[in-house]
């Protein structure tokens, strides 16, 4: 029973190319039974925001190796990676460090 969340999703380093060139997205995640975590967020992004070439952003359950994820300007590895539970007004930043997109 998670309430709707409002988070800011940002893309940098070229990842924005897959999202129509838009870097910042203020999204409202609908309420759902399980709490929102990064895993669910990625699925949601793939379904709603990703405009093309999903394999360049997502690989299996997680992001493609080479894409950094910052949650509130902190490395997601410190916060539990995919299992981090999102909170209202969080800021998630995806930076691509890959050479080609």
């Amino acid at each position, binding site marked *: 029973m998670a309430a709707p969340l409002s988070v800011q999703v940002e893309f*940098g*380093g*070229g990842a*924005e*190319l897959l999202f129509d060139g838009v870097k910042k997205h203020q999204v409202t995640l609908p309420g759902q039974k399980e709490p929102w975590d990064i895993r669910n967020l990625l699925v949601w992004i793939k379904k709603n925001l990703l405009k093309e*070439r999903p*394999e*360049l952003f997502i690989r299996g359950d997680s992001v493609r*190796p*080479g894409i*950094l994820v*910052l949650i509130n*300007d902190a*490395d997601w590895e410190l916060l539990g990676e995919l299992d981090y539970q999102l909170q209202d007004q969080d800021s998630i*930043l995806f*930076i691509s*460090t*890959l*050479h*080609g*997109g």
Partner: protein
Amino acid sequence: MLWQVLEGLSQDSAKRLRFVPGVVFADEGAACGQSPEDRAKTLAEVKLVLQTVGFPWHIVALEEVFSLPPSVLRCSAREPVGTEGAYKAAVDSFLQQHHALGEEKQSRPCPQHPQGRAGLPTASQTEALSRLFNSVKTLTAKEELLQTLRTHLILHVARTHGYSKVMTGDSCTRLAVKLMTSLALGRGAFLAWDTGFSDERHGDVVVVRPMREHTLKEVAFYNRLFAVPSVFTPAVDTKAPEKASIHRLMEAFILRLQAQFPSTVSTVYRTSEKLVKAPRDGCAAGSPGPRCLLCMCVLDVDTADSATAFGAQTSSQLPQTQPPVAEAEAPTVSRCRSGMGRAQHCCRMEEDDPRARVIEQLCYGCRVNMKDLPSLDPLPPYILAEAQLRSQRAEAEQEIQECLPEAHEDGARPGATSAEQEGADGRVACDHPFV
């Protein structure tokens, strides 16, 4: 890459680096198929960033490779290192300059360094560049060609404006990928130069990589936390699938391995640090031997080495119609006479096959790349001109060497003078292309 270099330069105020830097931006939009509007937009963004930095900046377009002189491909002698006194004088003059600049800055809010670019590239140059890149069959060769041309262009800018060092923003991660990619492309002999801290193969201009100890993750975090402005431009391989080129494949491989074994990148990096730039076996210390036409490393292929499988592979690329080796072995006195005719004959023949002439001046890695370029015509003229010059010079040298010992062997005066005469004539015949 630009934002990485900027980040390094932006530490100046804290660290007081003792050199006068300039920034060069190479616009490669034409090679990537960008539209002119996109390129103009990117350039405007880049100019904005460069102006806030405050250093002299140069924007060059990749199309300018078509107007480069062949001297770019020649290794110039390095300027002698200054003595202690000279160093102190240089530091003094730098501080004075800095002082003067500081005062200027206070009086004028933005010191305009009107370097900019000489002029927008012409449409024909853009088209020539697109034609060149479209004629390359594989993405791997395209990326390698792009890197080579970009290096030549930056080298030319550095030499023209009197810079002695070029700093690139290659990070630890990128260099690890580059090391593995070079191995896969057959450039194993030059790993120390391609991935080391300093690269002195060009002689007077040294390429240094000050960022090579920082991983991309560190750089990305730094840029984010310190709000370093960045401009993103699509590259040749943007949005390419994973197996499109060797570079992409290696990058995916290393990054995926890094995700599971976090010490991968640093291990590869440490290995690259241990590489030593040793001279080639059998070469005298003074004369390093011929250099590759494109990458300017000392050649790692032996044209005379046909006994090994490697030698057979490299020499089989030359066409069968070239008989200069066979002719050189004929030990007759009249050989020089025919030698002179041979020189002209060979010049004519090699005009029929300029591809072989260029290929034999390349290192193994560059030869493999050239396989994916069906025709050498779209290449910028400076490459072909330098190739022609080098092959004619090599022929002339061979000519002279073969003529002079012949005179000693015969011992007969008339034979000697005629041989020398023929040798001199042969030299003259081949000398005319020299400037």
